[in-house]
């Protein structure tokens, strides 16, 4: 039995999340050049549990991606991530990762007491056209099988030439990874942290509040391997949810960038007038505003789509365009500040990095378009 979410609940919960961002998240990330400390992030996560932004338990409750197959939860989650992303993209991404991990854990019937990360990202790209073919149930060629073998972790086989990566704040205890077994059958593997070789790779491009982890199985069997009919649709749903989240967080970040740039433009004077009166600056601010309005409409429409395998192509198609727009607009916002925008203290460069980082995870625009080209083919 899932927790019911009524239409009236959504604005109330979003308002509560806004207050949480203002009171609890905002003060911790006031100085963009300083990264939140691990202990502070843990306490913030606990507060997020308390207000129902994340559901930490195994029992139904409220939180991001609580029951995304039911109407309303995606709208709530997407709106909430956009709101938290407006305050800090890395923290929004962290909350999303916790919630996505819990969603996958519950669907797989895995112990929810251990904080799990669902590593939906394959080794590289989206296996060209092959992941789309697998997910839409097309016949697979030998080339498809070979690409999928290199895209997924294949249990019992040696690591390939590219390392496996995922992005998460520390504190996770288990990893839920889409895998192929020795026979090539798709399923979800659950690894305890101690069951895998894992190396933190600090100083990644953006999302400073999290870390890029390199990992590989130690060669032993996972704690649990769940295959069968529901495994692949669950992967499609996880990809769908993840794509929605990345767009929502990036949009929130851009809203913040726009606000900072517009504020600066209204104060800074050049040639005797505020720069907000100069056409060059107005153009850049207008491109930001136009992108925000466009992507907000897209995000709103996406969040009304049912989380099903069938809708994955639509979500990926939107994401392919949205991230390019969002990154370009974030660059515009930073440019408004001139030299100050390049300083880490101003926070704009961080938003540019965060938007770039989100663009590259789980399928870059090029890779998403390849997926879409296959998806759209009858």
């Amino acid at each position, binding site marked *: 039995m899932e927790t019911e979410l009524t239409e009236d609940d959504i604005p109330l919960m979003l308002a509560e999340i806004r207050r949480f961002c203002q009171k609890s998240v905002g003060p911790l990330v006031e100085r963009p050049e300083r990264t939140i400390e691990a202990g502070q992030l843990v306490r913030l996560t606990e507060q997020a549990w308390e207000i129902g932004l994340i559901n930490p338990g195994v029992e139904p409750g409220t939180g991001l991606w609580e029951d995304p197959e039911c109407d309303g939860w995606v709208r709530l989650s997407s709106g909430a991530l956009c709101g938290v992303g407006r305050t800090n993209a890395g923290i929004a991404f962290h909350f999303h990762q916790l919630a996505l991990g819990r969603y996958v854990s519950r669907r797989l019937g895995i112990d929810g007491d251990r904080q799990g990360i669902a590593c939906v990202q394959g080794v590289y790209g989206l296996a*060209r056209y092959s992941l789309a073919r697998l997910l839409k149930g097309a016949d697979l060629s030998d080339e498809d099988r070979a690409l999928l073998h290199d895209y997924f972790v294949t249990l019992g086989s040696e690591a390939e030439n590219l390392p496996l*990566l995922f992005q998460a704040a520390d504190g996770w205890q288990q990893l839920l990874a889409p895998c192929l077994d020795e026979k090539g059958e798709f399923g979800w593997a659950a690894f305890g942290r101690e069951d895998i070789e894992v190396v933190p790779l600090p100083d990644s*491009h953006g999302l400073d509040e999290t870390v890029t982890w390199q990992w590989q199985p130690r060669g032993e069997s996972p704690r649990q391997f769940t295959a069968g009919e529901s495994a692949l649709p669950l992967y499609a749903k996880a990809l769908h949810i993840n794509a929605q989240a990345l767009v929502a967080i990036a949009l929130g970040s851009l809203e913040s960038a726009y606000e900072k740039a517009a504020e600066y433009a209204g104060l800074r004077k050049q040639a005797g007038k505020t720069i907000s009166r100069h056409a*060059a600056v107005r153009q850049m601010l207008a491109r930001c505003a136009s992108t925000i309005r466009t992507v907000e409409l897209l995000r709103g429409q996406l969040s009304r789509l049912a989380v099903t395998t069938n809708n994955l192509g639509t979500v990926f198609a939107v994401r392919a365009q949205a991230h390019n727009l969002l990154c370009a607009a974030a660059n515009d916002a930073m440019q408004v500040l001139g030299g100050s925008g*390049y300083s880490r203290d101003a926070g704009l460069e961080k938003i540019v990095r965060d938007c770039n980082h989100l663009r590259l995870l789980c399928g*870059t*625009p*090029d890779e998403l378009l390849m997926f879409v080209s296959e998806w759209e083919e009858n």
Partner: protein
Amino acid sequence: MGQGSTRETLAGHLPPTHPLSPRQAFRCFPPLTSEFMTYEPRWIWEQDTAALPGPLAELRRQTRAFAEQELRPRSLEGDLRPHDRDTETAVLKRAAEAGVLFGHLPQPVGSGETALMDYPLQWAATVKVEELCAACGGWGLLLSAHALGMMPLLISGDKKVLKRFVIPANRRTQAGEPYLFAFAITEPGAGSDVEEGYGASLCKPGTIAKQAEGGWLLGGRKLFISGGDIADAVTVFAALEGEGIESWTCFLVEKGTPGFTCVRNELKMGQRASGAAELELKDVFVPDDRVIGGLRNGWALNRASLTCSRMPVAAIALGIAQGAMDTAIDFVCRFRMAGRPLIDRQEVQLRVADMIGETGAMRSMIWQRAARPVVTQANASMCKVRCSDAALRVCESAMELLGNHGVLHRNYVEKHFRDARLTQIYEGTNQINRLAVIEDFQEVFLEKLNQQ
């Protein structure tokens, strides 16, 4: 062809040995035709170098050798731990010994070949800077910003200034003790105002020179001064007391002068190995003989120096883009999917071709404009805008090719992006530079207007 075997072709292409390959087919041409229609199996870097005049080609080769040996290995370290004095000292000493700091200037002013005198200074500067920044944008800036600092001294056209300040600095550097200059114009809240005329005509200068016995007392603050934290001398621009920016004058201020301090270095997104200093001047005494180019000529020196430095900024952007492209090409040749390297995939080849085309177009534009004996503001600004915008596109393509692996610091391309982003900002934002293009052609537009 399996892994480990010798490959004869990329997927989707005929092998060079195939009779239908132009490499083979063109052999039918007579010698006269082969003079202009032949196949160059060499990489674009070698082809472009061969197309340069000898002294410039040599400068390019020498700079690359230095940059690959000294800068690239320190690139990630300089990004993560900038302003480490020991590393800076080591890099500068090696650069001094290798003749990099004054290498674009012919002897005796610089350490470059005398034959460089036959070519515009701009061309040599852009050739050098591209190679430094292809290895590392941060270290490249550290070694290049010095040329901008020195620019007002050269542009002053005053032989006494050259003999008194530039030639000794070069000698000291050649002796292994690097001497660096920096250029200080930007003031708090007035970045763009000092980079174009219209804004300047309405702004109030913040750094003021008061007359004193035998010289001037400078007071004020300068921001975002590249290399200002380590420079031995800084060309500081200040207005004369009681006058506006039309009185701007260039003063040469030496490190260690009482009242002259580096307050802080900015925390930057990229190009971190080079400091962007905030300089404070509190009654800094500058003797009359360190006024460069004459009183009230500072505005002209400033504008001319910026014009001369915008093409090198375009070359910085090009170098960073080249570095990003080289990194991405290494990646797509090294990593495999389904047993085939990424470069075998047509979508990857399309991206790489775009990057080669984009960097080639940048270099063509820079070299073609820099080869002209007279540098104009419009040419310099056009190059700066086009190349810095294009550089960002190339870096984005490199990140796209590395995909989720592009976020890793150790894979370089994310640093290339951060480094490239600054080239759209410094030496006047790209917006200011676009207006500089229009300013240069003002008479043309006015003539059309007046004909109506």
